[in-house]
């Protein structure tokens, strides 16, 4: 059962081939058997999952089931889950039992989707390697010496190792696409505002976006269909109809215009990754697509811009973590300042503290114009690059990352080197565009992802473009050794 896609599992449930309880048990057993090697889950909610599975079976029997009722998935531990620890992989929130459900979680619950547990991640989603988690790093199932990527590394590893058929992730600077690429799965970051951020613990509010992670584009379409939609609790969520993302998956790609930005194929891109991506482009040509050379001239500014906008917003967003109303509080604070400083000093890891300090500095008096305001202006320029490109092309393609997964510890002491590895994913967040990563090959046994960037609200086309490729190739269905 565990090797099936979500689409296949949904069909099997509907056909009565197996029950949700059986299916859920099977995944819980796999987690028990294999997650010791990966550390992809922070919390496994076995009993709750089985109760939800039995309720789903009842709905299926009663004929009131929705398309995904009874399918189990995992949630990144950044989403608030009522009555379940929601840690954001931080010591700060280790004691935090969320008293409410995030909108994304609620939507899945209402759809009858079963929650297997909460997946590991970089602390407060700040990281690209999953090494900043309070609960320890996640390993890449393709190579246990390698990082799974981050910040949604637990979700990516769990899906790659088939410890969940699908999972939720969040993407602020590549946190869905990069771990999806590094773990050889399919991940989609939707247009900013497409999925509600309510109950998703904020990192950088103007960049954060939740999205699906699964084995196939077809599965991502199914999951996105549940997640997407307007939410009156999120002022930045967009009031716009949600299309049927599955409907156009098989649309012909003849005449599709693919833009290849020269900046995504330049210095820093590992040769083997470049040839993997080129092979994927060749595949698209065979499917009838046309390739257009384009330029996104401000690409080199994306990382610097991001490392002002994201830390500035996070420095403010994380101020509520003060040890007063929830979360970690230091022992015996001698006064208020001591309470704040030690609770936060102990509660946050080094990378989170670094980013809070960068953001605090960037917003502080006298520096606002040079940093935050400047970054917002550059955001406009970066965004304009894409606008211009989409006047010429339907989608933009390139590598998701410049290299396959690096080794654990390799970049842990050099934040800037880590940041620069997100060069191809970050601009998409700054512009608010949708982007995907699709498995496109292996380099030295480690997966490589093809990034597909779409115009605003063009998720259906992205999924169509990814699905057609997956019909023609089998990279997405390969399993890492030891986890099949």
């Amino acid at each position, binding site marked *: 059962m565990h090797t099936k896609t979500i689409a296949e599992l949904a069909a099997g449930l509907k056909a009565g081939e197996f029950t949700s309880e059986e299916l859920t048990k099977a995944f819980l057993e796999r987690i028990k058997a294999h997650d010791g090697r990966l550390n992809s889950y922070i919390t496994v909610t076995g009993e709750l999952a089985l109760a939800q599975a039995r309720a789903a079976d009842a709905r299926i029997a009663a004929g009131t089931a929705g398309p995904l009722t009874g399918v189990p998935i995992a949630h990144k531990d950044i989403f608030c889950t009522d009555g379940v620890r929601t840690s954001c992989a931080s010591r700060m929130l280790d*004691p*935090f*039992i969320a*008293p409410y459900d995030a909108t994304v979680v609620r939507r899945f619950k209402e759809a009858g989707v079963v929650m297997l547990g909460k997946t590991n991640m970089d602390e407060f989603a700040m990281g690209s390697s999953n090494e900043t988690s309070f609960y320890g790093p996640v390993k890449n199932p393709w190579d246990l010496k390698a990082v799974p990527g981050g910040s949604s590394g637990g979700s990516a590893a769990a899906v790659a190792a088939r410890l969940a058929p699908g999972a939720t992730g969040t993407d602020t600077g590549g946190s869905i696409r990069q771990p999806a690429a590094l773990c050889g799965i399919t991940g989609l970051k939707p247009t*900013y*505002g497409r999925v509600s951020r309510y109950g998703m613990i904020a990192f950088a509010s*103007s960049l954060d976006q939740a999205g699906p992670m699964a084995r196939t584009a077809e599965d991502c379409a199914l999951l996105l269909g549940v997640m997407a939609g307007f939410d*009156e609790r999120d*002022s*930045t969520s*967009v009031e716009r109809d949600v299309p049927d993302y599955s409907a156009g998956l098989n649309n012909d790609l003849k005449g599709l215009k693919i833009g290849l930005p020269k900046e995504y194929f330049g210095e820093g891109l590992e040769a083997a990754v470049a040839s993997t991506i080129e092979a994927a482009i060749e595949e698209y040509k065979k499917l009838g697509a046309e390739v257009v050379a384009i330029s996104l001239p401000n690409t080199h*500014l994306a990382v*610097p*811009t991001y*490392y*002002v906008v994201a830390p500035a917003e996070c420095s403010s967003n994380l101020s509520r973590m003060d*040890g*007063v*109303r929830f*979360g970690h*509080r230091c022992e015996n*604070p001698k*006064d*208020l*300042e*001591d*309470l*704040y*400083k*030690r609770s*936060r*000093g*102990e509660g*946050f890891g080094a990378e989170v*503290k*670094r980013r*809070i*300090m*960068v953001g*605090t*500095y*960037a917003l*502080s008096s006298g520096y606002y114009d*040079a*940093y935050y*305001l*400047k*970054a*917002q*202006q*550059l955001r*406009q*320029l970066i*965004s304009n690059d894409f606008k211009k490109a989409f006047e010429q092309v339907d989608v933009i393609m390139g590598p998701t990352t410049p290299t396959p997964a690096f080794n654990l510890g390799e970049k842990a002491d050099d*934040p*800037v080197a880590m*940041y620069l590895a997100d060069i191809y994913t970050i601009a998409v967040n700054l512009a*608010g*565009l949708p982007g995907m990563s699709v498995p496109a090959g292996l380099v030295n046994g480690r997966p490589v992802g093809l990034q597909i960037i779409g115009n*605003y609200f063009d998720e259906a086309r992205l999924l169509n473009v990814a699905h057609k490729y997956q019909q023609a190739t089998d990279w997405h269905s390969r399993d890492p050794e030891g986890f099949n």
Partner: protein
Amino acid sequence: MALDKSDVESIAHLARLAIGEADVPAYAENLSNILTLVEQMSSVDTRGVAPMAHPFEMVQRLREDVVSEENQREHLQQHAPAVQDGLFLVPKVIE
């Protein structure tokens, strides 16, 4: 931009973060490197460019003035670090 020890200490104070004395030099170095990265921004002339706060030209939606939340104090305070008589407790605030 190079930050020194006292810069790190004053930023940490503003952000209410306790930083171990021994860790300050490493923070100073890392933060300086990050700021050097960030300063590439200054190579671009952005005069006349409108700052972009959000991807879309959307405007704030307004909520009707309706009381929609009930008292959930017990539920919301269940895991609070220190509570008495429904109040969150903190070390004495001196005004």
